[in-house]
């Protein structure tokens, strides 16, 4: 006999809708989260439209005007090859934002999927995968990422691969923990009693309840991903010059103390974006915390 489709009754659907409205209200009332969202959306807008309004190209050189300070012609000054720093910072968003999205999204999906599967399957596979996660977590991320990039060579795709390898374990452990706690609940037992397979139980009854903490963890991790990527580029293992990656731009200005704008503005760009991600992550976490909702929305 096939498993019956479980549909929500009206009171349950109303409860879900009310929870979502409370979540949106909690998020929108959080001014720092809104500020963070504005900053990140601002950078997204810059990345999408930069080719229309950037004053110069990212690789456009003007050697006669190299190492010039900020001026009306070059608002952020020029670097050692006469390239406009403002334009390079703007084009840098086209590298940083997709990289962060791919790494954070990829690590979340890969790690979350692995954690969900081993959480429901259990047994030796669970032990093996969790030991693998523990081994990966035994290394500080930047050190393991450096070892992987040294093995595979520098470049954007290799640092994305290195960060995915170092990033998946925390999501796997988080999702596995959530699955283990929720799979004991009555509604899951009921679904199994009706003949639902592991895959169906996972997709319809477990993952929807487990996904919130994983999403919050991913949003809180966005800033760390950007810092790690910039750090790898800073030490020469990331994006290969002359691409306008912010960490690499800070490295180019490292020895030029008098030309502070070369490192100053790219560093400010990294800080502003990481701050935006952190504010959004904090806002999501507070909005999903039942204690916060009860105190703020009563």
């Amino acid at each position, binding site marked *: 006999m096939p498993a019956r489709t479980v549909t929500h009754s009206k009171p349950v659907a109303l409860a879900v809708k009310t929870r979502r409205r409370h979540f949106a209200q909690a998020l929108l009332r959080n001014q720092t989260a809104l500020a963070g969202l504005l900053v990140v959306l601002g950078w997204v807008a810059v990345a999408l439209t930069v080719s229309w309004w950037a004053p110069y190209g990212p690789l456009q050189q003007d050697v006669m005007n190299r190492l010039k300070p900020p001026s009306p012609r070059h608002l952020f000054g020029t670097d050692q090859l006469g390239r406009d720093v403002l334009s390079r910072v703007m084009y840098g968003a086209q590298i940083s934002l997709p990289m962060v999205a791919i790494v954070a999204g990829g690590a979340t999906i890969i790690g979350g999927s692995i954690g969900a599967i081993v959480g429901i399957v259990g047994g030796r596979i669970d032990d093996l995968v969790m030991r693998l996660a523990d081994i990966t977590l035994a290394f500080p991320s930047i050190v393991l990422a450096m070892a*992987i990039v*040294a*093995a595979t060579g520098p470049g954007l795709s290799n640092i994305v691969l290195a960060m995915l390898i170092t990033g998946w374990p925390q999501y796997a452990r988080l999702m596995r923990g959530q699955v283990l706690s929720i799979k004991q609940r009555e509604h899951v037992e009921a679904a199994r009693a009706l003949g639902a397979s592991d895959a169906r139980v996972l997709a319809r009854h477990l993952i929807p309840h487990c996904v919130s903490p994983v999403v919050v963890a991913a949003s809180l991790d966005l800033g760390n991903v950007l810092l790690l990527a*910039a750090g790898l580029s*800073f*030490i020469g293992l990331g994006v290969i010059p002359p691409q306008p990656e912010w960490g690499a731009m800070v490295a180019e200005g490292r020895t030029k103390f008098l030309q502070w704008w070369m490192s100053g503005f790219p560093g400010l760009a990294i800080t502003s974006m*990481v701050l935006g991600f952190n504010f959004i992550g904090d806002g999501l976490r507070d909005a999903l915390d039942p204690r916060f909702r009860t105190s703020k929305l009563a």
Partner: protein
Amino acid sequence: MGKLLVRRAWILVPTLFGAVLACFLIAHYVPGDPLAAVLGDRAMENPEIVAAYRAKWGLDRSLPEQFGIYVWNLVRGDLGISIRTQRPVVEDLAEYLPATLELALGSLVLAIGGGILLGVVAAVRCNSWVDQVLRVVAMTGSSTPVFWMALIFLQVFYAGLGWSPGPGRLDTSLSPPPSRTGLYVVDALLASNLSVALNALRHLLLPSIVLGWRQLGLIARITRASMLEVLSADYVRTARAKGLAERVAVVRHALPNALLPTVTIIGLAVAGVLAGAVQTEVIFAWPGVGRYAVESSQALDFTGIMGVTLLISCLYALSNLAVDLLYGVLDPRIRE
């Protein structure tokens, strides 16, 4: 306490074994022939030479046998020869490690001491200017790249104001003290050379502040949150009701209980410091293991980078063990 030590140390064994296995597998799957980096193109054209070196270094054996040789070499302290320096990696690490330990200790002292103090004061004077300072420190620490903060500090305090000495562990006009621990400040004090000790301390201050800033913010936030919870507990109210001075109630009654979550964060702080040392040492020209790792990575010196990776993962595992034991010291329930 002994049982706790044995229990926790036993868990360390599979973690370290896993780290060794991971390093071996990463080293094994490096693209290209490792012999080519050592023998050179002309020798590689001679199949007899290639076969002889493969047999000598066990590269013709099965994977498990190669792993066994790798582990045996590690036990004997043989991490291979650095392609870049042409010296045994273990000698390179022995030379560079003390500088990293000195930097790590300096930053942890600042982070733990400053973080706990700031967290306690911010909790006791909630929503005051101290609380705002904590928020700014925590926010900047978690959002600012370590390498950028290091550059800013160097530009302001060294190039701009001249308050800080230049990069390196000591002024170039001074000789390092006789080495007993490898930590210049300690060695200079042991040799009763106060001027060298002070100079080394001045050089240590700025990189320690940069490296410890993020961890200070984290520790202060956790301490503050934990203190706020404990300060509203019944036993603290009782202490105040008995007429104890506020300072005594806070320090003797509230703080020891509030420190338990902080101890967990200290474990994370050690990892953060080891990771952050990589970038900080490059900026401050600090001759430590982090800078060695960066130079090895840039030169694709694989034996060097794997040696550093293994060393740092061991230090990380040992610091987690120390934190677990400290937890047992602070909370008698955990010892049982």
